[in-house]
């Protein structure tokens, strides 16, 4: 990451809607350069929704989200891997989209060196996941929004990923907001979203206008 040093991610009492219903409200936190934030919370609490909102895929119904223009990237359950392309082709495509080049350390960092020329469709679940994550290493974005990045990774690969975050991304002044159910062993604060479920008696719905 480039001019990361300067910046922080500031979220002030954001509310977000899913399926016409406000699932979270009053979410506030800020993450400074070089820091990570772990989002916790039971299934269905709204982690994915919040991350999509932060990433700008959907608009918050209230509150503000601030960070430097065009510095963010989003990675979700579906990691946009093309089964018909080789590992290398997948990575270099995303690199090009972000005007970057694929540096070799990425293959080592995500243990893809042997799989480099394999078609992505022939990877095992975890190997494919590693490829999806390796994408984050080549696009050179400072602010990462990660939705359950370690799904179906074995212990070793989880470690690899944690190292990447700690020693590469954060060390270079990057920022990461991560929703996960397992412990990544990062020294990062945790935020339990259960605290932001709007009280039942004033749940907003997108159809308020009709009430």
């Amino acid at each position, binding site marked *: 990451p480039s001019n990361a040093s300067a910046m922080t991610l500031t979220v002030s009492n954001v509310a977000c809607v899913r*399926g*016409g*219903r406000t699932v979270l409200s009053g979410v506030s936190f800020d993450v400074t350069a070089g820091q990570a934030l772990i989002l916790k919370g039971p299934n269905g609490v709204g982690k994915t929704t919040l991350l999509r909102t932060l990433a700008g895929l959907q608009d918050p119904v209230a509150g503000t989200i601030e960070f430097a223009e065009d510095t963010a990237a989003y990675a979700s359950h579906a990691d946009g891997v093309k089964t018909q392309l080789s590992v290398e082709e997948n990575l270099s495509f995303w690199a090009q989209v972000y005007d970057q080049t694929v540096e070799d350390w990425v293959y080592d960092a995500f243990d893809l060196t042997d799989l480099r020329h394999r078609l992505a469709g022939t990877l095992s679940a975890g190997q494919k996941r590693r490829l999806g994550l390796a994408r984050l290493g080549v696009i050179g974005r400072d602010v990462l929004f990660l939705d359950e990045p370690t799904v179906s990774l074995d212990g070793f690969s989880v470690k690899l990923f944690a190292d990447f975050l700690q020693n590469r991304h954060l060390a270079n002044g990057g920022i990461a907001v991560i929703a996960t159910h397992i412990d990544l062993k990062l020294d990062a604060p945790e935020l339990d979203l259960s605290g932001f479920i709007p009280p*039942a*008696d004033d*749940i907003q*719905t*997108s*159809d*308020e*206008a*009709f*009430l």
Partner: protein
Amino acid sequence: MSIWEYANPKKFMETTEPVVSWFMGAALLSTAVGLIWGFFFTPHAINFGATVKIFYLHVPSALMAINAWGMMVVASIIWLVRRHHVSALAAKAAAPVGMVMTLIGLITGAIWGQPTWGTWWEWEPRLTSFLILFLFYIGYMALWAAIEDNDTAADLTSVLCLVGSVFAFMSRYAVNFWNNGLHQGASLSLDAEENVADVFWFPALISMGGFILLFLALVLMRTNTEIRLRRAHALELRRTARA
């Protein structure tokens, strides 16, 4: 106070609900008058014979078919620009009505064509462009039906409605270019002489007015129904949310 106040669903329902029945009454009355007058108290046209009677159904429906789409375009723009749910729902409500009008226009036309042109269907520009309009109606409604989330559906259908109209116009031109038909020209010019004599014209005007009222009444009714549905949906959401 601006007219946008009425864009609030509640207010809209409160204001329109009472008048709807009046609209409907007037609509039925004038339609009936127009049709009866047209059917039983006009001489037979020289060249058409008794078949000309269907004209009183045919033309007004044809007219409304087009205007309905026009109304949908306006409503869609309002929705996209000002995000008033009511206008989106109005557009949704108008579609089936317009579709039926188009259908009536086509069917009566077909029935009309049988004696006059000796065939049920002729690839005549105006009929053709109406057939295309019919397809746009179906596509529009199908898109509404296919999407679960209400606002998404409203957005997408609005976009479709706008882009679609452009192509509808182009097809109208293209079709004329493709086959310059035996269908007679527009009969709505103020000096009706050039097309149809007054005797035919007055009842036609009345039934046209009737159809316009009918259209308005139906759209209002359906809009209110849609609003109620959304209301129910909202309440349901709130209930499940509470649970």
